């Protein structure tokens, strides 16, 4: 993980500086707190060579100093502490929805192969896959406001204050994002289940007269899950990307919207720290996914042993 994080830090540092658009010019135009561009560049330490800037930043990060936002002057860590829980909650709830929807729908579709439930679930998955989540999100706000007189809360309800209200607030964006993320999982689960159904050991189990539910859930599903779990790891990064839109639409002050703002403002310290944290999060989820293989598949345990 450490080499990966180091590589991410180098990449993000270089990419931000390669992007066209000069933060100093932007700040000079919008905030103008120095007499000249050169003075402002010098104040921000952006007149130093790249490698020196990187060494200073990395050194500070290793000491736990993530710096200050160039725009708001607020400590990056303080901002992250406010925003991170929102994105984590939305991301994890979305992944939960994706797993539940993708897993259940995939199994049901496979069991009812080529019958109407299969066709219906595949069609729904195609709809979720092809419709952009921001479009669904806009509909989810506008339509209930017209027909049901309901619209999302205008501000974040903290989980620590009102857990139930908080979950209700996150449910709709998580459902939209989760259904979008769950569609590929559904398709993969279905395909793998159909594949596994053709294996001899499943046919043997059926021939032995085992209860169909037991054949499906205990014998078939376990073997069919590995590719779906792998997809889940990849979907984590997509969940973060999707949260940017959901957070904006549903007034959730998370890291997604902060990420967009920091890129738009070329806020180097904020963006670099955000990406590092997000990379860490994605890596952690993928680690969990890897560890899940051990639980699901005994062959993995045997190989490791």
């Amino acid at each position, binding site marked *: 993980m450490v080499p990966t994080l180091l590589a991410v830090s180098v990449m993000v540092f270089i990419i931000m500086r390669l992007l066209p*658009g000069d933060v100093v010019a932007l700040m000079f135009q919008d905030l103008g707190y120095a007499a000249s561009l050169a003075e402002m560049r010098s104040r921000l330490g952006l007149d130093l060579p790249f490698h020196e800037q990187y060494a200073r930043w990395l050194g500070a990060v290793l000491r736990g100093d993530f710096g200050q936002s160039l725009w708001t002057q607020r400590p990056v860590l303080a901002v992250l502490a406010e925003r991170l829980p929102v994105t984590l909650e939305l991301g994890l709830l979305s992944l939960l929805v994706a797993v539940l929807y993708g897993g259940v729908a995939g199994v049901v579709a496979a069991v009812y192969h080529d019958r109407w439930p299969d066709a219906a679930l595949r069609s729904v998955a195609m709809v979720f896959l092809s419709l952009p989540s921001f479009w669904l999100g806009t509909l989810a706000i506008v339509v209930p406001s017209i027909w049901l007189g309901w619209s999302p809360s205008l501000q974040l309800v903290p989980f620590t204050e009102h857990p139930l209200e908080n979950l209700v607030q996150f449910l709709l964006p998580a459902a939209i994002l989760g259904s979008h993320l769950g569609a590929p999982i559904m398709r993969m689960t279905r395909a793998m289940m159909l594949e596994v159904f053709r294996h001899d050991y499943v046919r043997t189990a059926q021939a032995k007269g085992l209860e169909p539910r037991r054949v499906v859930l205990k014998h078939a599903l376990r073997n069919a899950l590995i590719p779906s779990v792998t997809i889940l790891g990849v979907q984590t990064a997509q969940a973060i990307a999707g949260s940017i839109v959901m957070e904006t639409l549903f007034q959730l002050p998370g890291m997604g919207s902060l990420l967009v703002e920091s890129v738009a403002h070329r806020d180097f310290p904020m963006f670099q720290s955000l990406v590092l944290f997000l990379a860490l999060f994605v890596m952690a989820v993928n680690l969990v996914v890897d560890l899940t293989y051990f639980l699901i598949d005994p062959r993995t345990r045997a190989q490791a042993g």
Partner: protein
Amino acid sequence: MTRSVRVVVAVAVAGVAAVAAVAPAPAQTPKRGGVIRVAEQSDPVGFDTLGKKKAPVYTQLALAYTHNRLLKYDPSGEIVNDLAERWTQTNPTTYVVTLRKGVRFHNKPPVNGRELTSEDVKFTFERLAKSPEARLFPTLKAVTAPDKYTVRFELSAPFSAFVANLAATTVYIYPKEAGKPTADGAGDYTAADTAIGTGPFTLEEYREKQRLVFKRNPDYFEAGKPYLDGVELYTIPDAAGSIAAMRTGKLDLIPAGRGEGLPHFLVPEARAIPGARVIPHGLFQTSENLIGRLDQKPWSDVRVRRAVSMSIDRAGLAKAIFTEGAEPFSGPIPVASKYFLPLDRMGESAAWYRHDLTAAKKLLADAGYPNGLPTKLTTTVGYGPSYASRTELLKSMLAKLGIDASIVTQEYPVWISTTYKGGFEGLVHIPAWTLGDEDEWLGSYTPGDTRNHIHLEDAKITELVQQARSAPNEAARAKLIGQFVTTFHDQLYRVYLPAPKLITVTSKRVQGYVPPVRGYGYAIALVNTWLE
């Protein structure tokens, strides 16, 4: 796609809108009480308009609730007294302002409701001198406080925008003890707990990117006002989200304080809200425009500029996208300005604003481009998707003239650091400007000004601007600005596009709200607003 959704929904509810539209309520007696819920697109970046950094728009908007200036603009745009009881100009370089007596700061520590004095004004202008806002008073030499309620401003040279700039939405009066200590003594007023002023509301809560909660200031100097118990200001970036929130009773006011405001295609949705009032109104801003570099061909040729202007179908553009109404153009100073020159008084230059493709093609041919010309048309996504779609419309209009414009869409930081600094080729689609006094617009046409993107170096214009700045009286200033405007329209340094009406929406509860022409201070209008 989001816009498409909005259009579909807008069309769907249009029929309902026609039935549900409600006429403005008749005059009623104001009532005390209630909390109004207001939408704003973003939230403040700090609470200091006179810090080391230029204050963002949203900081200015927030401080309009909590602070006062010496002078202010009333809803019609006229300058009236705010903290000043009266002001006089004793000679061309001296102004004396007498403060209202008995005005108290908010009853919050460390200020604890003490009385405002001339020392606070003096301190504020000392801060201002160290801030980017010093540009508003370029000839200010000294500020003194001869007694508790008198402030004396000495200028090194006459400056005709001096009084108007006292009403600028950055020149709020700060109490010295509220700021966090700084080495230079100016104090740091970035934190929310330093937002202590004399304004109609006190800041009680600030949740970044979520909401600001204001409470009625019981000691406000206007007796009996504000009528409201408080204001909740919610950050809602998406206009469709604001409409949905008002439809479900969660919002009372969607103000139009700057830029484009509520897109006109969403107005049918707003009208469909039972009891909602949709108020189209003007705003003190210039309209979007097309520019090119005056030091480069082909824009350096006035015939090309005139041809481009005549190729723009302003009426068609307004009919297609500004369904709630639009002025034909707003520039080089805002249509709401007393110095604005309308088409019917423009004389021969009015011809350049007529849509006449035949005449436009002839002008282009006379300029040496009988077969048209290829060019770039730079725009940005930084002002929202509808802005970029208007660039597409401009491209199609230019095509009819024979100008093959290839659109270059820039990300906002790239736009600011290249195009907005004047580093571009071809044509550029420039957004509306919301500035302060007319002097700020005039100043943007002088060499060296950061907003002189068009690279104008016209000795006559520069002299007119300088003379207008040092004009000894209003009559002389009006004459000089009139000459500037006439010259501008003749030379057509910028091709101004239609200026849409701004759209404010209020819920059925809201009474007495009059959208001010000076949008950045719309909080002032809430002092006279009440809820039914």
